[in-house]
């Protein structure tokens, strides 16, 4: 234990301690569990040596010693049973403590959530909401009043004069559209364009050429 301790100084000095008392308690419990496990291992190895001793005594016809060894073995076996019982208890305790830790963080989270909720509720007071609702109700009523007044002045969907007016304007508009439609061309197509149409040429170069020709003779293309 020397050089590597000096090379890596303990990080605890610069970092905040993030270990709580309950962490230490859990560590103590787990260390106890480890001790029990070590003890159990020791007992298990004693049992196997008890057994081999008993066999040796039987071979050498030392019956009483063999019985003693077997008694020891039985005793050690009951100790192992006890060990297992303790291990079970300690495991239960550990998981209870760890579960309690989880619950603690859960409660803390609930607390934070609750506080946030309260704060937001304080900002939006009931009076304020009531006022808002009232105001929007007033605005709606006002709007209805305006509507009622307008209807009273006679501008309704059923007003025949107005409807007739509307129809007249629509017809005029339609007439204007019809007059503006260009008349179909009367002149012959230029010979190049005719060829193109006959050949059904659809390659771009051809079309470009035709268009160029048309541009040269604009008088042939009616507006």
């Amino acid at each position, binding site marked *: *234990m*020397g*050089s*590597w301790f000096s*090379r*890596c100084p*303990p*990080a*605890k000095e610069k*970092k*905040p*301690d*993030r*270990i709580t*008392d309950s*962490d*230490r*308690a*859990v*560590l*103590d419990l*787990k*260390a*106890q*569990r*480890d001790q029990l*496990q070590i003890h159990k291992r020791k007992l298990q190895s004693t049992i196997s040596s008890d057994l081999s001793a008993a066999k040796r005594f039987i071979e050498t016809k030392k019956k009483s010693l063999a019985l003693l060894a077997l008694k020891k073995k039985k005793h050690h076996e009951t100790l192992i049973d006890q060990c297992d019982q303790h291990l079970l208890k300690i495991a239960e305790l550990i998981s209870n403590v*760890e579960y309690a*830790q989880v619950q603690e963080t859960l409660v803390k989270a609930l607390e934070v959530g609750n506080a946030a909720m309260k704060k937001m509720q304080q900002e939006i007071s009931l009076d304020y909401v009531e006022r808002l609702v009232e105001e929007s109700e007033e605005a709606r009523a006002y709007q209805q009043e305006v509507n009622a007044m307008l209807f009273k002045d006679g501008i309704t969907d059923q007003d025949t004069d107005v409807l007739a007016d509307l129809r007249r304007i629509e017809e005029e508009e339609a007439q204007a559209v019809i007059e503006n439609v260009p008349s179909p061309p009367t002149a012959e197509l230029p010979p190049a364009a005719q060829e193109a149409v006959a050949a059904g040429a659809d390659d771009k170069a051809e079309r470009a050429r035709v268009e160029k020709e048309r541009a040269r003779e604009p008088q042939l293309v009616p507006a």
Partner: protein
Amino acid sequence: MESNQWSSPTEFWDLPPFFTIQPTDATREKQLSLWLQVVCHYCRAQRQYFIDISERMADSAPFHNAKAKRKLTLDGLRKICSYMVQHGHGVWMDEGQNRMAVFWRKPQEWAAAIYRWASDSGHLNSVETLFSLREGDDTRDQDFHGLPHEILLIALQALEGQGKAQIFRGSSSDHDGVKFFSQAA
């Protein structure tokens, strides 16, 4: 040791000159880097974690090759170990530099493996004893199971340096424990 079950990662191990530290700088550098591979490979295969600068060590594989009828001198063994320490594959355990911990995986790699296990098995934000990391049933199928206390401690110190864990002692016992954190402080 059971050298017959192990085969060297380099054929140089069967050549007699490999067991004499070479005088030319460039050759020696190459030789030592090969020795580093050999030692790491052997220790990984045998799950060996320490090398003593002793005759007993020099007499056993991988420092002794019965087929080539060659073995390293203590000085050669020391040179190899120093080279490994220089390159982060080992650390001296004592002032007198007679015992070296072999890092056939570097401490950062052990640290990453331990943290991965802690994360996968739901041990983040909880406490574990160093003993149960080394020998507990939970880590039985992990590569770091059986890691000696000293090397485990170095690996955990690496995690501590990254703020991913904290090593501490219990209130009533002097057993080392570690708490893993889900995020660095």
